[in-house]
């Protein structure tokens, strides 16, 4: 568990971090909470030449209310999100989800920006981020832009972030009711299936994680839902290529996706 050598630089601003990324390209990687990056480096599965620590950049760990949105800085830890009264008041489901992540150590260090950028197909946040219709604020050398959650997750560990872009904040519309239910993988406790259901003006929106190579909005469920949770949940994996691993075959995982969607819909109703 000894990493290959790398250079470590602590960035003091977003612009410093971005210029380092620009200068060193593929060789440099951002570090926030380190709870995904460092294990990979220790196992030498990932061997960056330079690690740019953005963990202490001022202003990236704020949580605030902006109109109808809750804005969460990329460096906010899971613990911060779980215990923030602003988050609990505006999108309680996100606070509840944060509580389900890993253990205390992970929640104290791991960040929402790191989790979203890492895009583990079994991570918890993406289900809620999708269901809530959040937008991800990113910044690159070309300036700032926002990405819709539905466009953000693209595959296993793959996002819409450009090479030299970083996440600045997540903008989440407030919602009055939402649930996140997960069936944990017994070893890692990541989601085998995690279902977020959130009430919106048109009914409900559903985000599913753990099921496919990346989290997705279960629109087929949303449009089918008219109060009959079981019938709607039957569409949970429509058009989805369901993953298979040592803990859940695709058949079982698809079944769990339906069960958890049904349970989430029932819990919401």
């Amino acid at each position, binding site marked *: 568990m000894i990493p*290959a050598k790398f250079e470590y630089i602590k960035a003091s601003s977003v612009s410093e971090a971005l210029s380092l990324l620009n200068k060193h390209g593929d060789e440099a990687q951002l570090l926030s909470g380190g709870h995904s990056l460092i294990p990979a480096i220790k196992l030498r599965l990932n061997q960056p030449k330079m690690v740019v620590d953005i963990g202490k950049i001022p202003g990236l760990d704020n949580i605030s209310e902006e109109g109808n949105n809750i804005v969460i800085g990329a460096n906010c830890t899971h613990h911060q999100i779980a215990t923030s009264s602003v988050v609990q008041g505006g999108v309680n489901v996100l606070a509840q989800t944060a509580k389900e992540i890993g253990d205390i150590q992970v929640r104290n260090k791991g960040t929402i920006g790191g989790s979203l950028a890492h895009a583990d197909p079994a991570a918890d946040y993406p289900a809620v981020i999708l269901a809530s219709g959040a937008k991800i604020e990113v910044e690159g050398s070309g300036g700032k832009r926002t990405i819709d959650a539905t466009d953000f997750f693209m595959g296993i560990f793959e996002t819409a972030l450009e090479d030299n872009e970083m996440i600045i904040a997540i903008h989440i519309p407030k919602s009055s009711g939402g649930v996140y239910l997960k069936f944990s993988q017994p070893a890692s406790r990541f989601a085998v299936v995690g279902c977020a259901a959130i009430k919106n003006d048109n009914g409900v929106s559903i985000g599913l994680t753990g099921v496919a190579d990346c989290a997705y909005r279960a629109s087929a469920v949303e449009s089918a839902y008219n109060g009959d949770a079981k019938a709607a949940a039957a569409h949970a994996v429509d058009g989805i290529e369901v993953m298979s691993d040592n803990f859940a075959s695709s058949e*079982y995982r698809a079944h769990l996706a339906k069960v958890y969607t049904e349970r989430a819909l029932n819990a919401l109703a």
Partner: protein
Amino acid sequence: MSNYIGQSIKRREDDRFITGKGKYTDDIVLPKMTHLAFVRSPYAHAKINSIDTKAALAHPGVVAVYTGEDCGNFGVPCGWQVNFKNGDTMKEPTHPLLAVGKAKHVGENVVAIIAETLQDARDAAELVEVDYEELPAVTNPNAAIQPGAPQVHDDIPNNVVFDFALGNPKEEVDAAIDGANHVTKLDFKNQRLAPNAIEPRSYIADYDVTVDKYTLYTSTQNPHLIRLLMCAFVLGLPEHKVRVISHDVGGGFGSKIYHYTEEALVTWASKQIGRPIKWTSDRSEAFLTDAHGRDYVTTAEMGFDNNGKIVAFRVHSDANLGAYLSTFSTACPTYLHATLAQGCYTTPLINIDVTATFTNTNPVDAYRGAGRPEMTYMIEHLMDTAALEMKIDPVELRKINFIPAFDGVNQPGYQTQVALQYDSGDYHATLDRALEMVGYDQFRKDQEEARKNGKLLGIGFSTYIEACGIAPSAVVGSLGARAGLYESAHVRVQPTGSVSVFTGSHSHGQGHETSYAQFVADTLGIPMENVDIIHGDTNEVAFGMGTYGSRSLAVGGSAIMKSLDKILEKGAKIAAHKLEAAVEDLEYAEGKWTVKGTDKSIAFGDVSLTAYVPHDYPEGLEPGLDFSSFYDPANFTYPFGTHIAIVEIDKDTGKVTLKRFIACDDVGNVINPMIVEGQIHGGVAQGVGQALLEGVDYDENGQMITGSFMDYAMPRADDFPFFETDRKVTPCPHNPLGVKGAGEAGAIGSTPAVANAVMDAISHLGIKDIQMPITSERVWKAMNS
């Protein structure tokens, strides 16, 4: 008088453990110490065409690089010889310190890199180029013996290590099964487990050229045996030139009994480079190379008469021993396993047949329970299954078949069909108590009610017996052990009356520094603070066989008792002299000798001072108060008990939740109830882990797909309810403390209780069995097929 025995005295060692002050091998830093990293085989089976170490050697900080060619003549031995049924010696391939010619499992050591820092060693390891030619691999013990299977060792046909049988003649057993009124037959897979001690293996070897001596610091359960095996069978060193030290050890569960290749390699290499060398396993290496446990594929049948009495028990197993024979691997599926086939029952005919095989997997050896959990799982799972099939209550079925109570004193021990003679037991007692604790009648009502409401509740039983403190040496020797299984103890009374106890057993979580001090202090009638327990250093302790198989108190404790007897016997002579009385007129209590019927007495400390300042002293008596003893037990000890699990199953997902777990164990006399309870709790957690969560899986190429805590499901506190435990006491009749051993009982008894509870919850749906680990998916599939 007893001040300490039977008290839950807090463990003295915990002070240093929970404040981070323990001294583990990796904490030790020696001057000029170098660090070793391995290049390990990424293939389960591959020919090594060539190894290019030039770039690694040129890397800054690298001190030496070794391949199998450099140390190819050494091999670590197996410690137990089991012969084929026809008398031929088992097949024992050389287990080289570094692979020679072929790599035979993923993770096998191929190249050793020694450097100034661990960083240098690891970096240089990446520069080694090994030209492998991948070969087909075999990982399943049953597949390994089929014609045409890949050959792990070119010179060992069909991958068979040995075949083995124990019990009554096969024809008689076959006939009884054929003629039985009912036969319950199950196929079992006792899956492979990773022991996962929290402290990974760690070794430091330090060769001192000035005196031509070696010191090996090692995280082992067994320092003297490591020294014996390494000196006599691997490196050919005289033992007086080698000191083995194992300070604090963070758990072993069996995996640190064995002599590993890495231990011998660092010791050998330390002399080559003339500097100390440290190697500490990381967690990934631990998953790949710490000896695994279990891994049997079995078919077992139990025949019953029309009253539910067992008429015969027949088993055939293929046991996977991995690519090489680890120290006690061969004893596990044979003498530690087949000998337990009697269970607690009066089964008149038993035959156990085992084929042990090589595969392209990490070596398998004893893991908490060692052969006994596997057998207990079969017997107890068959019992509950048979009860369901015959529509007899599982409790009733046990009561019909139990061996009647016997204390081993007024009633003789119970002679089994499989070599052992049980010492004492009262199987009804723990069962009755456990039934009371669980509220059995009420549970059956709750269960029926729950079923009406669409909920799946189940109860499972396990009335286990186990065999600890394996002995006597002559018997185990005749069964193939290449070591004795006695224990040594040296008690040194210091002149001022404090006591140093040197024991050959070894504590790595068991709390010996506390429980031993309790009975020593009580026996001598002195304060516990005056007693020190010393273990884990071959220079301090004369000899020892280490700790495993729940042997420490029963064997090691008894050796200490022998030395204490000698101390008190000699002390009485000195006391008699000082008190001007006859030895026969003295009594010893509360730390002093008193002339019976008088108030004339002399304290233990005054006697010990006299022994070392022998001015006014019995004629002809040697000075000093210091005795060594060796204790070779007359028999094993046989703890037993009843475990009951209650589970609930989510019928939508198949997820099993353990709702309650009741354990009533009888481990003989108890010195420290808290420590015993802790052992039971930990053991139960591991046993439930096997039932529901754990399992090492290799894919068809022999790649381990469960090589991290993200992929290998270790049980966690929130997987369990609080365990409800109680005890019965049937003293061991043949050792001075009357103790039986508590280290493995939890792991042996619990697994079948949980598996049985699952089946009790769902068998009414027409499900016959589910293999372990009983994962949600397996339950769901069974309910939906």
